[in-house]
């Protein structure tokens, strides 16, 4: 049974280590670019089968954004959709046969170790940490772009001691966001790979099938959770402090009264 917590280095390029999951993430990016070029070059008013599938995904995310933040949340859709597509594709690519099974033996300090050529991109903490950092910096960026300097009132507020303490908590929670974003995705996908490896080594045929189904579902849910959390946090960062979404908004109260 071959389980490795860290991604294995394949080769070095001018001192830069290329690991197998970096290779997989490049493949994911190239696939996404190819799909994007293919779809956008043949855009048609009467969509074909392929264009329809892509449109369904786009509309799903756009609807999600609008249900979270109304019409203005459309500005965040490109980022959120990129997260969704990249994570979804790399989660699902990691389940394909060949990932983790095709590789070569490397002799290191007397004993041979198996190095797979490809490893799911999101099953490596480096990839998920990068995604989490992009997400958290995007949250700050959108917050500053929308509220200008008023955004920093969230962190530094001297109006009263309680608000000052809440500001410190906000600061801590932004750091914790990086940790929870990256470990949630990495933990789920890596645990899935370990689960599949264990089941396959116990019963090689038929038994892993339902678990593959489970992993396909988990891959979708994690991609959805990552993009949705990014969306919600950006939405929270772009509203004025104290202007909490809820029943104290006159619009929301009207919606409740009309039962919509």
């Amino acid at each position, binding site marked *: 049974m071959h389980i490795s*917590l860290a991604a294995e280095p394949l080769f070095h390029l001018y001192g830069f280590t290329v690991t197998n999951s970096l290779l997989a993430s490049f493949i994911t990016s190239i696939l996404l670019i190819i799909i994007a070029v293919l779809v956008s070059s043949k855009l048609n008013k009467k969509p074909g089968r392929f264009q329809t599938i892509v449109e369904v995904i786009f509309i799903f995310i756009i609807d999600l954004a609008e*249900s979270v933040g109304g019409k203005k949340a459309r500005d965040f859709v490109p980022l959120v959709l990129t997260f969704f597509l990249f994570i979804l594709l790399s989660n699902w690519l990691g389940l394909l046969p060949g990932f983790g099974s095709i590789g070569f033996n490397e002799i290191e300090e007397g004993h041979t170790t198996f190095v797979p050529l490809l490893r799911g991109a999101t099953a490596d903490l480096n990839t998920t940490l990068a995604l989490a950092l992009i997400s958290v910096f995007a949250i700050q960026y959108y917050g500053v772009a929308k509220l200008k300097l008023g955004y920093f009132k969230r962190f530094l507020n001297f109006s009263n001691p309680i608000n000052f303490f809440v500001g410190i908590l906000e600061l801590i929670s932004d750091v914790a966001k990086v940790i929870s974003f990256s470990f*949630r995705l990495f*933990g789920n996908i890596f645990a899935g790979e370990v689960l599949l490896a264990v089941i396959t080594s116990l019963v090689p045929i038929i038994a892993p099938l339902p678990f593959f189904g489970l992993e396909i579902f988990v891959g979708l849910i994690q991609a959805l959770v990552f993009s949705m959390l990014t969306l919600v946090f950006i939405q929270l960062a772009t509203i004025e402090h104290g202007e909490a979404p809820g029943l104290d908004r006159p619009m929301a109260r009207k919606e409740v009264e009309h039962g919509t």
Partner: protein
Amino acid sequence: MGPEETKMLATALVMAVGTIAPALGIGILAGKALEAIGRNPEAASKIQTNMILAIAFTEAIAIYALVVALIIKFV
């Protein structure tokens, strides 16, 4: 018990104890959400979105346990 056995035991214990609370939490969450959908089926999509979000937060605690277990096992 040698250090190797202690490590194995610690790994198993972290997962076993660390997943009790998130399991209960996700159960309560999903139960309440289903109850809410039953009361108001028109709000199903909104409830679902918030449920998945809350489950993600709850599940994060189990993931922390998993990460600790992985660190004990492999590092």
